[in-house]
């Protein structure tokens, strides 16, 4: 509860942004360039702009029904700010008493309101619907159950389960003095589980997968720890030669990538090509690793992370081309180029000015240490690598060369080593689709790419990097 000062204008009550931030124990930012103000409460953010009726809550646009304004006494937001986005962030009712000029916040206890169990390609998802963001803990005390606790939550209705699946036999949701507890009983066929909170609508998803399937490093990756120099030197000493290549077969699992006319999927092509490339690189004296060695989904960020953790010296992302018309053909090689938008440059960070959960570095972290800006230090080397590989492919392959260019590819953004993306042919082109299923053709392309990487190694080592 807080006594706050207000301002009336055109029948609308305005509150000082600074007072609200103080009242809810939030952190406020003001960007004089974009004239946007951000209030951050916990992990959530609300951004408002001067003279715009719309606020952005996390990534969602919310109508405030009146425009914030800036006066000599500060930045003012309308009452809609309190009742809309702020109430949602606090998961509470925000009440303004004009008589007493008092602002009070009544917390709403979050509730678990629905239960759904469904099978997916990867396993079974148990979805617990929530009325708002809430804390939760998950653990697996025995092999047979996964327990999810929502401390302080309530359970308005008893929730039943429709029936078991291959991996989940039963789900019990019950209210206790501590909150709500959900117990997911898993079957013998269950291998691993993941618990994740998602928003819009708020829910916690427990994904129970079938028998264990490694979604990351191929077994050999675990052996590369010895390649890591002593911890103290982990940044400085890399680069005594280029010996480790991380191959990243694009797409995988639920993400099929592009699909050809015959039904050939990009995820199959990239994986079989990656295997060929791995062989060809090893034949040229490289250690070759793959970000995935099976048909499984890996996020873009994770791909870069795997390469960084393995201290790879070169990263090669594999993709196919695709287009609306069957005429497009050929190969292209790309390196990373950061987005050039003015607002990005103005703010000196990633983002369009809209808040981006989970991607902001903690205060005090230098931009050049940000994981998603690693590649910016390596663009020159990556361009040289791209040119070497494209040159080698142009000389050796009967494919049309589409050239080398810079693109803002998130998969490369986090790589701390020279990194490229190769599009090895158009899956939407009838002839090239046939070629992409031909092991001999894939081997030829792999040879050309591997020779390109070797040529880059030779020139980099000659110039002492």
């Amino acid at each position, binding site marked *: 509860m807080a006594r706050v000062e207000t301002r009336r204008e055109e029948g609308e009550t305005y509150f000082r942004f600074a007072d609200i931030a103080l009242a809810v124990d939030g952190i406020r930012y003001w960007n004089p360039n974009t004239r946007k103000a951000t209030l951050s409460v916990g992990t959530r953010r609300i951004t408002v702009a001067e003279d715009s*009726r719309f606020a952005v809550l996390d990534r969602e646009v919310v109508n405030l029904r009146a425009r914030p304004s800036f006066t000599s006494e500060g930045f003012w937001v309308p009452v809609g700010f309190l009742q809309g986005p702020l109430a949602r962030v606090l998961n509470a009712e925000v009440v303004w008493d004009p008589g007493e000029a008092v602002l009070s916040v009544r917390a709403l206890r979050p509730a678990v309101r629905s239960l759904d169990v469904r099978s997916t390609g990867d396993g079974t998802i148990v979805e617990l619907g929530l009325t708002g963001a809430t804390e939760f803990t998950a653990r697996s005390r025995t092999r047979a159950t996964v327990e999810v606790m929502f401390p302080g939550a309530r359970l308005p209705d008893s929730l039943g389960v429709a029936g078991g699946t291959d991996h989940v036999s039963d789900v019990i949701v019950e209210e206790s003095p501590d909150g709500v507890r959900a117990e997911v009983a898993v079957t013998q066929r269950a291998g691993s589980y993941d618990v994740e909170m998602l928003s819009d609508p708020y829910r916690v998803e427990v994904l129970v997968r079938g028998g264990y399937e490694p979604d990351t490093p191929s077994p050999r990756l675990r052996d590369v720890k010895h390649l890591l120099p002593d911890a103290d030197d982990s940044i400085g000493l890399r680069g005594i030669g280029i010996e480790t290549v991380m191959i990243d077969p694009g797409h995988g699992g639920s993400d099929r990538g592009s699909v050809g006319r015959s039904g050939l999927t990009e995820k199959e092509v990239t994986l079989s090509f990656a295997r060929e490339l791995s062989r060809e690189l090893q034949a040229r004296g490289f250690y070759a690793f793959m970000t995935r060695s099976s048909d499984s989904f890996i996020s873009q960020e994770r791909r870069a992370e795997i390469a960084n953790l393995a201290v790879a010296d070169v990263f090669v992302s594999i993709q196919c081309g695709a*287009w609306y*018309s069957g005429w*497009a053909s050929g190969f292209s090689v790309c390196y990373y180029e950061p987005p050039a938008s003015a607002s990005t440059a103005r703010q000196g960070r*990633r983002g369009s000015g809209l808040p981006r959960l989970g991607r902001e570095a903690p205060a005090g972290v230098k931009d050049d240490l940000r994981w998603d800006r690693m590649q910016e230090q390596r663009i020159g080397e990556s361009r040289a690598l791209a040119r070497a590989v494209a040159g080698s492919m142009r000389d050796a392959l009967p494919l049309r060369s589409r050239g080398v260019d810079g*693109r803002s*590819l998130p998969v490369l953004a986090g790589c701390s080593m020279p990194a490229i993306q190769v599009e090895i042919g158009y899956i*939407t082109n009838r002839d090239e689709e046939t070629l992409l299923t031909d092991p001999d053709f894939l081997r030829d392309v792999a040879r050309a790419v591997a020779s390109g990487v070797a040529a880059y190694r030779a020139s980099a080592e000659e110039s002492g990097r």
Partner: protein
Amino acid sequence: MNLVRAKIIVVGIAVVAIALVFLLWEREAAQDLEQGSAIEEELGRGVQSTVIVFADPSASRLVEERREIEVQEDKAMRARSILQELARGPQEGGAVRTLPAGTIVRSVVFDDRGGVFVDFSRELVDKHPGGSTGELMTIRSVVQTLARNFPGVEEVTFLVEGREIETIAGHLDASVPFAVEQYR
């Protein structure tokens, strides 16, 4: 008699315009309703010439097509109509579509700093053929269609169903605005 008929038509158009504006308001998308000038200004009849930027069949370069659309005074509405033409696909040979069939341009918002926000329907991400080059051509065609018809546009942000997106088909970073300078 003719005068009466003309009056009825003008009133009819005004009613439709007001209804449209109201519908958009209700959706609460980030519509730039502050301008609201469409309501007050008299709507002229006729067509205007616009440039729609498609791509060639080999996804190598952009192809311009001139097309006439009904005159719309409101800038955001005009931009929306122009992009809707882009979504409809080319009429002349030598060009192919750059947005998936069925894509709807839900709204367009201009800010006063050269930024444009374009809100597409789900088809943009669900039905895109994929490929990093393919995504690049889609972005270039939208960005250049806006830049050619609205001088002063510097950057374009893609939204899908009112929300920011990470990427269109998994390759290029769509979480930041696309600079006209970069997507030539």
